[in-house]
């Protein structure tokens, strides 16, 4: 059985950053990725990122994936397994992997789970009609495979993903008929909303989907106004003819593997779902089991990347001495604090406070 200092599960921004920092400081690392490419969701992001230069601000997400990939492939002590699913984590830090039909066991001193998140769905009659997609699927079709998902689209959800994917749909030549948002205000950054609105896309807050109609695929969507309890108001129905509906109603951490590994978990709404209790270094209640990125709370890719760098550095310093550790760590922690400033960040910080070990065990 092969033995690594660190096995990282998931090669999105968090997992890649973690692997880079761990191996850069001398650890042997295995990076495992279910997909057949590195970069995770970054490769679908054609928009420029916010943040500062340290998180590659103003660079497009897809190009950040390339930057991280180049950095990773420069390192000597990292093995990468694509097309490989991590199956389970055992007490002795043995992790089992499935690569096509090969079942592989690997031993690690530490395991980092950076499995990201999955999309939530919205329940309404006929939501299983062809033509109704998650926003991630639409991005994959458009930006990975170059396939237009439909002629027109109604976007459900005005968070950052809903707004950004709507803009990308416009760029692909799809008629975005409306962005429908259940809450009373736009959840995503307003600059993204301004970009859509000035191109004539109505953003309908306090609205949701009542039902979908279509013989064999989506033909029309009925939307309606919601009252303050998020119940539909009869008589406010509007009919929108469309062949595509895109759901962008939030993400939930893909944290199942952590529960299986015995990490103590809790449900935190502001972090998107079930997340592990962690300490300042993102270590779970299981010794040498770490997390970074969306799996421990839904945030931006920039924060996921910085978290990855933090975990990688923490591990490097745990198993090998990193001479300028505290300088490097202070810089990373400051970056993360800056990214979490402001309204959205406050919301996230409240959630993180709930999972910080110490608070929980006190």
């Amino acid at each position, binding site marked *: 059985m092969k033995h690594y200092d660190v096995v990282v599960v998931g090669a999105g921004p968090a997992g890649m950053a973690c692997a880079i920092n761990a191996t850069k400081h001398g650890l042997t690392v295995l990076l495992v990725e279910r997909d057949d490419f590195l970069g995770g969701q970054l490769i679908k992001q054609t928009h420029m990122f916010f943040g500062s230069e340290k998180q590659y601000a103003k660079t497009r997400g897809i190009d950040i994936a390339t930057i991280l990939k180049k950095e990773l492939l420069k390192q000597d002590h990292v093995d990468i397994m694509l097309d490989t699913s991590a199956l389970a984590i055992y007490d002795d830090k043995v992790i089992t992997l499935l690569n096509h039909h090969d079942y592989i066991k690997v031993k690690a001193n530490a395991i980092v789970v950076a499995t990201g998140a999955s999309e939530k769905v919205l329940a309404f009659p006929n939501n299983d009609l062809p033509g109704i997609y998650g926003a991630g699927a639409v991005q994959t079709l458009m930006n990975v495979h170059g396939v237009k998902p439909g002629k027109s689209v109604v976007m459900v959800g005005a968070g950052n993903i809903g707004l950004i994917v709507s803009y990308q749909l416009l760029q692909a030549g799809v008629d975005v008929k409306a962005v429908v948002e259940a809450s009373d205000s736009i959840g995503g950054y307003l600059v993204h909303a301004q970009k859509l609105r000035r191109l004539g896309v109505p953003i309908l807050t306090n609205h949701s989907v009542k039902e979908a109609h279509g013989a064999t695929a989506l033909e029309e969507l009925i939307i309606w106004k919601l009252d303050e309890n998020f119940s539909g108001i009869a008589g406010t129905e509007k009919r929108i003819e469309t062949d595509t509906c895109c759901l962008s109603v939030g993400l939930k951490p893909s944290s199942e593997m952590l529960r299986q590994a015995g990490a103590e978990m809790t449900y935190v709404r502001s972090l998107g779902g079930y997340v592990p209790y962690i300490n300042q270094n993102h270590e779970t209640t299981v010794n040498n089991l770490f997390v970074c990125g969306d799996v421990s709370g839904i945030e931006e890719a920039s924060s996921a990347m910085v978290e990855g760098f933090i975990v990688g550095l923490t591990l490097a310093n745990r198993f090998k001495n990193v001479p300028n550790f505290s300088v490097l760590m202070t810089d990373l922690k400051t970056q993360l604090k800056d990214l*979490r400033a402001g309204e959205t960040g406050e919301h996230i910080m409240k959630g993180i406070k709930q999972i910080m070990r110490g608070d929980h065990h006190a």
Partner: protein
Amino acid sequence: MLKKTGYQEKEIVKKEFPPLKHLKKGPKAFIECYQKIPCNPCTTSCPHDAITIKGDIINRPKLDLAKCVGCGICVYNCPGLAIMVVGQADNPDYKTFDIPYEFYPLPNKGDRVLGLNRKGEELGMFTVLRVLNNKRQDKTALVRVKVPNEFLYDFATIKVGEDNE
């Protein structure tokens, strides 16, 4: 209202807009970044130190109108596409707007394109004066549009290939 609808009210646009007396001295950036965002490429990209973010990165950028020369570098470096440059046109009845544009096909110099306001309502057909799309801009083109003075506080973007004439 911006948080509900996605567009800024005209009164606020007017208030934030570079004052006309400054525009007489040369083109100026107009930053429409109304919300606190952890983001700073506008300041780091400005070669004239005209844009500053005081304190934390989350704070809104501030433009020094005296230092701004209207070069447009911030326009394609802003991840939110929230900056444009406004300048005097040859004809005193018009202004020029340099806007970020990320749609294909790009317009050509001399084209007549549909002007839109912040709500996406049609303002009329306007002339394209210049299109810049060099490698440094990383796929965000800079399109200069000639806009009648009456739409100074309305003009927000263009649609190419919509023939309304």
